[in-house]
Every structure is written in structure tokens, then in C-alpha cells.
């Protein structure tokens, strides 16, 4: 069967959107199918995100708008999968597009219907904590901004049809069945939260002040039911004492919840506690948890900050009961402390950290797509490729394959895109459409001829201010050739009108006064471009969202404000110029620094797609850190995997491997790098060009100085123990093995979790027990962090008799060496001081960054490191494999400690991100960027310090001497340099000083 250059992405949360964007940017047609009425998924419901406390809506909405507007993404909402046939490369999917009862082509999202609707429906987005109309959008910033009628509530009164000026409401609109032909499928349906069933231990559903974490998230949100104030549902009082209960529905073997760990609850609970305290300082959060699983990058620091700065109290306990105090509606919690005493405390509110369940329709999806589910009903995935489902050509990403947080979801989404690239590369670019546009009309130097279009927006603007008056005012402004008003300026017929008017009146600037440029500017820019005007010869005045809607009872003043806003836009329009976007050629070759698993996976992916790849390894042979690992906890044979990879790399003609190699220079920028490498025992020098760089330099194992390591040969590292278990039978004559966790992790020198040591310890403990069932294995731990499905092995280890004993950071175990005997002394809360005799002490040494190497490379690539000397990505949540410097990506341990599976995902993700650049012959860079007036520049260099993108450097100009130079490829146009330039030598195109002055001045 012939392969198809299109992809279907099922589910348009943050994962689905990311995968769709990566693929669409790489030249594939994408069908994005969403079951609800808007995209964004759970992330859009969140208030803030850990560990940076970024506002979730701020960071996600630009991405959603981009998804909604992308030329190559065909977005369908309210859909249901009917039938799937075919195989990898060629699938046919039948999709039912359920009717919204509103014509999405005509709906402008103005919302009048919802305001007039007399019926109240439950607001699902706000988790049932508020009501809204039966005619609605999910949330105000929804993409696509199309209303839908909820037929469950609609009474068919017809009011909305009457008020809709766009005539978009069609009660008899039918469902539609479509057939879609694609080459690959990505499943990203996300998860459903665990809802405590009736009669649950926590009194959820019975007691009003017991809420789930996702409900609490809405309570925290500024756009939530209480406008960001933290109030308890029973009486609207501020709850001063809030208890957070962890592991609700997770790590539960009673059969009521799920046996696995939901991975994210520890962190989101810490975040909710912090934000609650931040919103209202009188709130004192208490968190009841078993282990604190802060295993991700910078998570531990967040927990410490929560405790120290936000007065969050942690209690290591699983509570035994909750009862409501009838008079006050407070909640009485009974729990056992670590030393065994039973305590009762009253709280004003209880938040249940509910776990992540597989999506409710997981079984349905699995059946339709023919993919297998695992024992917990999540998608089963390949042991060494966490995005590959059981069926070739179908990939899974995000929480569908296991509970995970946003960065891991985004990484996997890109990884799935990376795997699709590998499968469909020869069909790239076959199904995308490119618009043919007329040549641009040259307008420079011509007197401005401005056309102003003022929108009524149905009654949204026209109902609250005097649109004809504003139109009259606008028509009298200097250089305005024509001012007109329209019922809906964004409607399709008005676009034609604008184009015709531009031609008829020879307009060379267009101003639209309507809604917000954030959603509608690209539409109008496209329109004027179709009429032959440069996209940037456009201005918008926001007279709806920032005028008529916020001054609904002040007709005169709103009209006056609208006039001012229109005048300011016209004043700016008079000064705007066409901006040409710079185009750059792209060298379609890649450089990968580091030949460990991440580097090798990335190299093979690139080579499969036909990109020539240079792979640089510092050591004599490929393999990296994983050479010391024999198996994964889940049973994957790592040694076999690596030798297979090395063989494939060596036999691939497109991959050039340099061993014992060091980089001398990396020069250039996105699409056009030039690197010199010194390699081999003879120190040969090779120079080559490439378009992208992936940093996969890895990390190293901490070499302990504590616990007698290096002084007593009975003290060994976990990696040495693994070798001993796998290559000898020495374990058979051992009686007792003691393991110490967190050696060189989570301390002052390395204040982070190394993520993999708990799993490594349990893996080796299980193997030791398997080889010698009589050996006693004791694990001394601070928190056992077997997140996700790894929890199973933790339980298995306990069942097999591995003993786990908790120790505190400030009271580490003490090692006494008495001749041939090792004694380990430890203070415990329950048993007091204990002493264990042991034949072997195994230290779970953490992962540390290669500081010197990383610093050197970071300097060459102009990318940052974090406090722990790991590479720092562009955005912790949404750009986990990108650097702020474009064209450079990161994968594997160089980024932070992680498992082999995560490294593989990240490597494929980095490839997918790189392919958005490599798939084009030339790339276009943003037009609204900085430019330097060399005649004014004194070369002081202040701008260089302010530039977050390293886009500015000082050069020696033949005429002007030492002056600043902006690399227009790296510049993002933020203007931090221009705001600071004392000589006014820097300007930002599209936001020039002249334009802003024009807006400020010229009042009348």
C-alpha cells in the first residue's frame, strides 16, 4: 500500500496540540480530532504549573491559537471515532463530527447567544462549581472560539437564534460522517481523574468542604468560580487550615483505587498548597503523604521552598478517617504519626489529591485502533520506545500511556512526531497546501492612504457605543481615505469587501477597529496580503474586549474612548512600513554531541530520514552511561539494545561517527552552523557544516566520599553491585546486603533527586533475592520514588521480603567497620536505634552533571546551565527539548537525571523539533525584530546584557567603528535592548519609537 503524507492526532490537549504542530511544521497534513468542543485539555483548566508557578493559561493559549490557525492542521471538534482500517503508512478512519447546532463557519464567538440563553447548565470546565448557559464555549479563551448548544439542557426556546446577528444558529444541523486517509496515527486522549466513589473514606460528595484537587485548581484560578479567592464551598469563608491528602485513588491495593502511583500528585499538591498560601496568607496548608515523590528536574527545590517559604507542613501518614463537624462543617481528620501515636485534628477544608485514571474511553479507543492496553488499561508501549503502541504506525503520547506531567507529555508528543517522521519521511510535503499570493504592492515613500473598518460585532460593540459616530470621527482623521462600518468585520463577506476596497481606493494601510489582535490580527493580515499589501501594513484598535465590553453602561465615555483608540491606531498606521521577513537557507545536516543512548537514537532517526549526521563521542566507544546497566526495572535488556544500536549506527552510511572527539569551535546560527572537531588518537581535525545541534552529552555517576566508599571493599556502588549480580554468583554466599539511597542526591551539594536510583535499587534487590532467596536485603531510604507503574516492583520487593527502612536527611546511617564485619547503625522513629550487620553495603550514588564539559559547551552554543550544571531548556513546561537559542536541542542526562525510556523519548522529541527546521529549504524569521542605527550606536554594549537570546554582539564596522550588531535570525523582537538604549540607536520594527510616539501624541 502506498504511504500517505498525512497524520491523525486523536485528542487535542497539550500533547495532541504539540504533536500536531511539530508534524504540520515538518510538512505533513494533520487531522486533529477532539471529542470535546475546544482544545487545550486539562492544562487549560490549571491555574499555575509547577515548578515555576507559571500561569497555565498564559503559556498554553498562544500554542492553542497557533494550533487553531495552522494552515496544515485540520481541526475538528466534537468528534467520535467510528472505524479504523489499514496498516502503518495507510490508514482510513471514519469520524463522526457531531453537530454543535451552530454553524462553525459563521459563528464569530461573540457570545451574545450565551448571555441571552435562559437555561443554566452545569459548567464542566469549572468542575461543576459554577453554572453557565446551555449555549456556550468551554472557557473564555477557547480555541476554536465557536459556541455550541448543549442539547441536554437546551429547551429550544429560539432566543439565541433571534439574537444571533451572524445567523450561525442552526437547530437542525446534522451530524456529519467523514473518511480520513492518513499514514500514521497519534493517540493523545489524555486521562480522566479518579473520582472517589460513593461511600468513600474521605466523605467526598457527602461533605461539602471536601473537594478534589482539580476542583481546587479551579477555585485557585483567577478565571474560576470565585475569581481566584480561596473560599470553601459550604459557606464562602476563607479556610485557614487546609489539609491535602495524597494518593487518593493511587497506590491503593484495596481494589477501590488504582495500584500504581499517579506520578504527578505530589508536585501538583505542593503547588496548590503554595498557591493557596500565596493567594491568601492566612491559609496554612498541611499535606499528608506517604512518600514525597519529587523526582523531576528542580522538583525537590520546590518542595523545600514550599516548606520553608510558604509554611507548608508535611506529615508522613495516610489518614485513617475523616468526619464532618456538623455545626461548623469543619473536617476532623484522624491519623497515626510516624512514632505510632494517633492524633485528631480539625481542618476547614480538605483537598483530595486524586490520581490519574486511564481515559474513560480507553477500552473503546483500544478496540477501534487495535492497540493493546496494559494491566491498568493504559496504552501498552514498547519497552525501549515509550511512544510506540503494540500496532505499527500508531503511536501514543502523554497520559494515555502512563500518568505523567506536562513536560513529559510535551516531550512524548514531540517524540511521537519524531517517530512519525521516521515512518513517513518520503511523503513529507506531499499533502500540504501552499497559498499562491499576488506580488506585494510597493508602498514605501507613498503618502499614507488609510482605510478604517469599524465593527459593530453584532451588538457587542454597536450596543454599547456609537459606531457611526466613531466612523465619522475616523473619516476626518488625516490620511484616512475611507472609514466604513460592518456588522461583522471578521465574516467572510467582509474580507472580500476589504480586499475590493483596498483595490478601489488604492489603500496602502488598513486599520480595523473591532476585537482583539491576539485572536484576529492574523486573519486580517492574511486578507490584506491577499489584496497585495504587505502583512505588516495593518493596525488594529481593540474597541470590544477593552472598550465596549468593559464599559457597558457608559455610552458617551465608551464612544470617546473608542475614538481615541481608533485615532491612536490611525496615528500608528500612518507611520508603519512594510516589513520583509528574512529568509535563510538551511544546511540539511545534523550534529549530535554525545554518543550515548540519546545521541545514538537521535542519529539513527535522522539518518533514517535521509539527513547526514555527525555523531561526536568523547570516549573511545559509543554507548555512554548505559554501558553499565544490564537490564531495566521493567526487564528490558539494555546491553542487547545498545549493541544493536551501535551496529545500526556503524552500518549506516549517512552517520559519521567521531570517537575520542572534542569540539574546537562551533560557529553560526540556526540552519547554518560550522563546527571543527578534533578526534581520534592522532588528533585529526575535521570541519563540517550542519543546520541543527542536539546536545546529548550525558552525565556521570557520583563518586562518594562518604560511607567508607573507597576505604572498605565491602562498600560498593549500585552499578558495581549490578555488575556483580549479572556477571558472577558472588551473591550466593552473602547473608545480608544493605543499600543506602540518596547518596550524593538531595543534599546541599546536589539538591535534586537522581530519579533512577530507587528503581535501580529495587531492580537489584529483586535480582539478588531471585538468585539467592536467603539473602537479606535492607534498603535504607528517605522517600521511595517508584513513580508510575514502577510502584508494582516496589510492592513486589516488599512481598519478596526486601526490608525498607526510612532515615532522615539529618540523621544518616553510620557505618562501623570492625575487622571483616560491617555494621550499620541507624536511628528510626518506630524502633529506636538499630544496628544491622552486613556483608555488602551498596550505595545508590546519584547522577551528577559533567560540570567542566557542560560549561565549555554551553559557552560555545550560547545556551544556559541551571544551578546544578545541567542544561537549561527554553521553557520548563512547554519547550522541554528546545533551547532559547534556536536550532539547538537537548536530550538525555545532559538535561537532568532520567530513565533510559525518558532519554529515548527526548532524543526522538529533539529530532522532531529539529525536523521542523530541516524539512524546509529555507526558513523565514520573524519580521518584527530589532534593528540598529549604526550612526547612533556608541558601542556601549548595554543591549548585549539585556538580550536574553544572545542575539547581539559588538562588531567593528568600517565606517562607524565599534557598534552593536543584531543577528536578525536570533532576535525575537522583545525590545529589551531598545528600551534600554541610551542613544536611541535601536528600534523594533512594528513597535518603533516613532510609531509609539505617534500613538501617544496628536491628541485633540
Amino acid at each position, binding site marked *: 500500500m502506498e504511504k500517505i503524507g498525512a497524520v491523525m492526532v486523536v485528542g487535542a490537549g497539550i500533547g495532541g496540540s504539540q504533536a500536531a504542530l511539530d508534524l504540520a511544521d515538518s510538512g505533513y497534513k494533520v487531522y486533529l480530532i477532539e471529542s470535546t468542543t475546544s482544545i487545550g485539555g486539562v492544562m487549560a483548566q490549571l491555574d499555575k504549573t509547577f515548578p*515555576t508557578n507559571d500561569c497555565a493559561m498564559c503559556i498554553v493559549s498562544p500554542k492553542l491559537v497557533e494550533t487553531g490557525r495552522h494552515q496544515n492542521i485540520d481541526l475538528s471538534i466534537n468528534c467520535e471515532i467510528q472505524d479504523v482500517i489499514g496498516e502503518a503508512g495507510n490508514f482510513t478512519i471514519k469520524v463522526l463530527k457531531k453537530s454543535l447546532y451552530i454553524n462553525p463557519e459563521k459563528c464569530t464567538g461573540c457570545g451574545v447567544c450565551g448571555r441571552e440563553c435562559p437555561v443554566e447548565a452545569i459548567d464542566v470546565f469549572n468542575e461543576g462549581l459554577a453554572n453557565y448557559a446551555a449555549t456556550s464555549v468551554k472557557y473564555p479563551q477557547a480555541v476554536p472560539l465557536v459556541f455550541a448548544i448543549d442539547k441536554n439542557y437546551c429547551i429550544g426556546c429560539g432566543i439565541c437564534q433571534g439574537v444571533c446577528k451572524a445567523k450561525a444558529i442552526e437547530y437542525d444541523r446534522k451530524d456529519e460522517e467523514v473518511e480520513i486517509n492518513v499514514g500514521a496515527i497519534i493517540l493523545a486522549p489524555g486521562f480522566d481523574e479518579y473520582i472517589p466513589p460513593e461511600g468513600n473514606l474521605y466523605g467526598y460528595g457527602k461533605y461539602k468542604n471536601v473537594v478534589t484537587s482539580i476542583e481546587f485548581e479551579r477555585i485557585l484560578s483567577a*478565571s474560576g468560580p470565585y475569581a481566584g479567592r480561596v473560599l470553601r464551598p459550604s459557606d464562602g469563608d476563607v479556610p485557614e487550615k487546609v489539609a491535602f491528602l495524597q494518593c487518593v485513588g493511587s497506590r491503593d491495593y484495596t481494589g477501590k483505587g488504582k495500584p500504581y502511583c499517579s506520578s504527578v500528585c505530589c508536585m501538583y499538591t505542593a503547588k496548590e498548597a503554595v498557591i493557596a498560601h500565596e493567594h491568601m496568607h492566612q491559609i496554612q496548608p498541611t499535606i499528608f503523604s506517604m512518600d514525597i515523590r519529587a523526582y523531576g528536574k528542580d522538583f525537590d527545590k520546590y518542595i523545600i521552598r514550599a516548606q520553608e517559604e510558604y509554611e507548608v507542613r508535611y506529615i508522613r501518614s495516610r489518614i485513617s478517617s475523616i468526619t464532618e463537624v456538623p455545626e461548623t462543617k469543619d473536617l476532623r481528620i484522624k491519623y497515626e504519626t510516624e512514632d505510632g501515636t494517633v492524633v485528631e485534628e480539625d481542618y476547614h477544608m480538605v483537598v483530595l489529591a486524586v490520581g490519574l485514571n486511564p481515559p474513560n474511553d480507553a477500552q473503546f479507543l483500544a478496540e477501534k485502533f487495535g492497540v493493546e492496553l496494559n494491566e491498568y488499561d493504559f496504552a501498552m508501549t514498547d519497552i525501549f520506545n515509550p511512544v510506540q503502541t503494540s500496532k505499527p504506525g500508531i503511536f501514543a503520547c502523554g497520559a494515555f500511556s502512563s500518568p505523567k506531567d506536562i513536560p513529559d507529555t510535551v516531550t512524548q508528543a514531540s517524540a511521537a512526531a519524531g517517530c512519525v517522521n521516521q515512518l513517513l519521511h518520503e511523503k513529507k510535503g506531499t499533502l500540504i497546501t501552499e497559498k499562491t499570493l499576488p506580488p506585494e504592492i510597493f508602498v514605501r515613500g507613498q503618502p499614507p492612504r488609510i482605510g478604517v473598518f469599524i465593527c459593530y460585532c453584532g451588538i457587542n460593540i454597536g450596543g454599547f457605543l456609537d459606531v457611526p459616530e466613531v466612523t465619522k470621527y475616523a473619516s476626518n482623521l488625516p490620511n484616512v481615505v475611507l472609514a466604513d462600518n460592518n456588522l461583522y468585520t471578521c465574516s467572510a463577506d467582509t474580507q472580500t469587501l476589504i480586499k475590493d476596497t483596498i483595490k478601489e481606493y488604492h489603500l496602502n494601510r488598513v486599520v480595523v477597529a473591532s476585537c482583539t489582535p491576539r485572536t484576529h490580527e492574523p486573519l486580517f493580515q492574511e486578507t490584506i496580503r491577499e489584496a497585495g499589501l504587505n502583512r505588516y501594513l495593518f493596525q488594529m484598535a481593540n474597541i470590544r*474586549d477593552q472598550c465596549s465590553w468593559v464599559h457597558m453602561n457608559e455610552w458617551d465615555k465608551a464612544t470617546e474612548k473608542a475614538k481615541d483608540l481608533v485615532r491612536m491606531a490611525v496615528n500608528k498606521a500612518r507611520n508603519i512600513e512594510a516589513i520583509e521577513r528574512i529568509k535563510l537557507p538551511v544546511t540539511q545536516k545534523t550534529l549530535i554531541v554525545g554518543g550515548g543512548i540519546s545521541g545514538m537514537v537521535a542519529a539513527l532517526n535522522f539518518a533514517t530520514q535521509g539527513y547526514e549526521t555527525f555523531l561526536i563521542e568523547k570516549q573511545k566507544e559509543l554507548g555512554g552511561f548505559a554501558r553499565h546497566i544490564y537490564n531495566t526495572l521493567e526487564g528490558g535488556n539494555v546491553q542487547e539494545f545498545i549493541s544493536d544500536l551501535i551496529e545500526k549506527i556503524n552500518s549506516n552510511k549517512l552517520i559519521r561517527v567521531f570517537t575520542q572527539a572534542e569540539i574546537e569551535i562551533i560557529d553560526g546560527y540556526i540552519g547554518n552552523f560550522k563546527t571543527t572537531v578534533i578526534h581520534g588518537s592522532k588528533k585529526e581535525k575535521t570541519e563540517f557544516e550542519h543546520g541543527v545541534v542536539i546536545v546529548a552529552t550525558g552525565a556521570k555517576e557520583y563518586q562518594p566520599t562518604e560511607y567508607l566508599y573507597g576505604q572498605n571493599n565491602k562498600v560498593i556502588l549500585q552499578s558495581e553491585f549490578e555488575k556483580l549480580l549479572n556477571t558472577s554468583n558472588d551473591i550466593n554466599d552473602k547473608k545480608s546486603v544493605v543499600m543506602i539511597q540518596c547518596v550524593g542526591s538531595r543534599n546541599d551539594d546536589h539538591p535534586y533527586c537522581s530519579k533512577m536510583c530507587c528503581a535501580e535499587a529495587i531492580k537489584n534487590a529483586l535480582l539478588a533475592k531471585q538468585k539467592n532467596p536467603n539473602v537479606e536485603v535492607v534498603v535504607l531510604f528517605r522517600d521511595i520514588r517508584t513513580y508510575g507503574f514502577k510502584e508494582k516492583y516496589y510492592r513486589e520487593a516488599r512481598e519478596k521480603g526486601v526490608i525498607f527502612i526510612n532515615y532522615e536527611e539529618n540523621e544518616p546511617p553510620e557505618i562501623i567497620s570492625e575487622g571483616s564485619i560491617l555494621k550499620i547503625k541507624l536511628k528510626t522513629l518506630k524502633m529506636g536505634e538499630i544496628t544491622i550487620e552486613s556483608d555488602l553495603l551498596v550505595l545508590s550514588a546519584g547522577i551528577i552533571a559533567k560540570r567542566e564539559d557542560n560549561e565549555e559547551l554551553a559557552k560555545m552554543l550560547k545556551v544556559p546551565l541551571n544551578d546544578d550544571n545541567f542544561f537549561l531548556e527554553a521553557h520548563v513546561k512547554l519547550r522541554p527539548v528546545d533551547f532559547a537559542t534556536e536550532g539547538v536541542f537537548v536530550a538525555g542526562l545532559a538535561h537532568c537525571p532520567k530513565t533510559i525510556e525518558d532519554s529515548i523519548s527526548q532524543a526522538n522529541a529533539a529530532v522532531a523539533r529539529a525536523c521542523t527546521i530541516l524539512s524546509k529549504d529555507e526558513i523565514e524569521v520573524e519580521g518584527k525584530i530589532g534593528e540598529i542605527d549604526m550612526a547612533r550606536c556608541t558601542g556601549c554594549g548595554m543591549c548585549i546584557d539585556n538580550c*536574553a537570546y544572545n542575539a547581539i554582539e559588538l562588531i567593528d564596522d568600517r565606517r562607524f567603528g565599534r557598534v552593536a550588531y543584531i543577528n536578525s535570525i536570533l532576535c*525575537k523582537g522583545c*525590545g*529589551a535592548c*531598545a528600551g534600554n538604549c541610551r542613544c536611541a540607536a535601536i528600534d523594533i520594527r512594528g513597535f518603533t519609537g516613532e510609531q509609539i510616539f505617534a500613538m501617544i501624541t496628536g491628541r485633540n
Partner: protein
Amino acid sequence: MNEITSESKQMKNTDDEWEPKILAFLCNWCSYAGADLAGVSRIQYPPNIRVVRVPCSGRINPYFIVKALLDGWDGVLVSGCHPGDCHYLTGNLVARRRFGILKDLLEFFGIEPDRVNFMWASAAEGERFAVLIRKTTKLVKKMGPNKKFEKKW
């Protein structure tokens, strides 16, 4: 010309109370979006601000603010992303540093500190945006018209 305009402005306002005109610089990614959200949520606030959209609060040259005051705006408001949230990584931090100095300088000139206000509002804080506008308007109103830079000769 200047005098005539200020005269006609005062004439227009004789029948009702004097209303200040405040110039608001909003960053595109957070505050401008927050202002839009206030609109979508129909949260009402006084109609005194006139918005200039900028890519980032870091773009705002102190001269823009001075120019606005020179041109007779009664107040200037600058709002960006919360510290740490900047779309451009550090732009708002650069801005914060810069405006701290500018505010001192303006005070030295004899401009009432409350005329020029800096604040943060995120894309999810429609309500907060409205509250801040109400507060700022009240502050500037209390100050009366900005006549400090009016030409007297």
C-alpha cells in the same frame, strides 16, 4: 495649539466631573491578554485608560513615559507579566529595574509618584486587571490634571 486643545478639553468636561486620561502600556502576552479576559468576562472598570500594545514591558523606553507626561496625559500605567513569567525570559525583569530608576527620577522632577504606576497582571487575571485599573484611576484622579509640563510662556 496646545492651549486651545486643553481649553476645549476643559470646556467639554465642565458639566460633569473631571476625568483623567491614562496611557496604559500593556505587554502582549500577559497583561494585554488579561485585559482581553476582563472584557470577555464583562468585568466593568472606568473608561479612562488608552492602551498601547507592546511586545514586552522590556520594550518600553523610559522616554515613552516621559513623552506621555509631556504631552499632557494625566497618568501612565505600565503592566507586564509577573516576574518570572516573561514570554521573552527576562524582559519584565529588565523593565522592573529600569522603571525603579525612572520613578525616582520623576519624583526628583516633582512628578507625583502616583501618576506613573507599574503593575503585573497575567493572562488569567481579568478580575485583577480591572481592580488595578480602578485603583490607578482613583489615584490619578485624586492628583488632578497633569500640568507640570505645561508651557507657561
